[in-house]
């Protein structure tokens, strides 16, 4: 049983069930700083539920979640954000009436970093918008942005909180080939900068290349956990 502090995020025997069936059963895993963990599996395997538990939207029935060594199992989502954990949603949740700038501002106001001057804030927002290539959409209400832009805006908001851990829920869903390439490039860049990430996606082919390790869920249980490159072999093995 390795030391808590070696891992940035650690989940221990997390279980929850909806109604009569177990959505998640005894899931344990850890993410080391700088690592990229991919979580994949068929629909209904519990991926999003796991993310909801890690980000605080749900509380598990049993098991614990630790972030930076601290027990966060019962903490509310905004507290985890303040600690350095950011997430995106499967269906991008931005405030439609607010512009891209305002949406990012909301997050930047609650960033983990020490609050600087007004200029620092503006600088941070500008930087994030640039990184996610949303500078032109700055003042457009989110309700009028394309789905690709909305996805990037989600990430921009997450980045504006200066996270140590970024969790992405199905970031590649419903993207055109071009948008997918752009997003991949963005994530690769973040990986180079050393940002720890958890990426939930049923695109295990992308994860095999992008992630360091992969956790494969099936029916709420861990079916496979290991180096990313072994994922394809595992999936092939499943098919026979």
């Amino acid at each position: 049983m390795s030391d808590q502090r070696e891992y940035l995020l650690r989940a221990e025997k997390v279980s929850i069930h909806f109604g009569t069936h177990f959505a998640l059963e005894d899931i344990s895993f850890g993410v080391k700083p700088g690592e990229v963990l991919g979580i994949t599996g068929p629909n209904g395997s519990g991926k999003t539920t796991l993310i909801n538990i890690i980000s605080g939207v749900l509380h598990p029935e049993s098991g614990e979640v630790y972030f930076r060594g601290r027990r966060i199992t019962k903490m509310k989502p905004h507290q985890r954000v303040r600690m350095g954990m950011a997430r995106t949603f499967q269906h991008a949740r931005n405030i439609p009436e607010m512009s891209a700038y305002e949406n990012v501002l909301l997050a930047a106001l609650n960033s983990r970093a020490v609050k600087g001057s007004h200029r620092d804030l503006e600088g941070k927002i500008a930087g994030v918008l640039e990184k996610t290539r949303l500078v032109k959409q700055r003042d457009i209400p989110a309700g009028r942005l394309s789905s690709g832009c909305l996805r990037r805006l989600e990430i921009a908001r997450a980045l504006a909180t200066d996270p140590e851990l970024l969790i992405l829920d199905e970031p590649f869903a419903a993207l055109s080939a071009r948008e997918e390439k752009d997003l991949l490039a963005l994530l690769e860049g973040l990986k180079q900068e050393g940002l720890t990430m958890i990426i939930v996606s049923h695109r295990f082919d992308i994860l095999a290349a992008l992630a360091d390790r992969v956790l494969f869920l099936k029916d709420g249980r861990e079916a496979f956990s290991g180096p990313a490159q072994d994922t394809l072999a595992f999936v092939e093995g499943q098919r026979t």
Partner: protein
Amino acid sequence: MESTTYPLFRTGRRIAGTAAAVLLAIGIFLVPLFVTNQFWLNALIMANLTAAFVATWDFLAGPVGQLSGGQALFLGGAGYVAALAGLAGVNPWLGMLLGLVFAAIAGLVAGLLSLRVSGPFLILATLALAEIAHESVLAIGFLSEQGYAIGGEGGIPLLQILPRSAEGFFTTAYFLSALLLVGLVAGLYLMARSRLGLQLRAAGRDILSAEAAGINTTLYRLLGFAVAAGAAGLVGVFWGQYVGRVTPSLLALQFSFSAMVLAVIGGRGSIIGPAMVAYLSTAVFSWLWVDPHYQQLVYALALLVLIRLRSL
């Protein structure tokens, strides 16, 4: 309602709008120079107070993003608490403060409710809370030592800090009510436009999204409600002081409803618009000596027509 909220940050219109608003505010203060007739001053004082009340509903509906079906609870409740405190021999200033405290607490309760209950059900729940208060004060009545009926339909008298018989009562009352209106509307408006307002709006609009941005949604929801309710309470204690009496009509559904309608007509979320519409309609209805039943008819029709138009 899902109509678009007031757009933030539109500079050109902002400058013109601010100038107009400032002129209007100044204008309101200058009214006593031209109007000395007591009936008219009274009508305009009521217009000021109603406008301030409507502004508080709009602050809740717009920036905080929650529709309240019982805004009268905060206004009337505060008034009644102040009046009851007066009956118990409490200093009227302290009584007003107690009224404010009541309104803030009631606001917190409503805020907590809003975390569990959404949309149409919140309208119903807040409406129910206001009706409970309304029925309670209607039902409770007793005779004072001097043999006066206190409570029930007739309401409760308040010890006025400035008595009605005093010299320049109406002019002073007008000035104070104008100050209340302008101060409240300005304060709520600026709060709505500030960064605090932005976070309030997010917390009201989408809890999951706001939490993901690091906003403590529970805190902001409660804050928003406390501010809106407290502001309504402020109007309420002033109302009681001015009229010298609080009656069940201050807690009535008709009252809450009219606030809702006027805010919707004035442009939900803009705060200044609803205040203006409320001021104008109250003044006009007073001028035309319109029966409250016809007023309600007009309000209800206007609401239905507007809802119908906006969704087409």
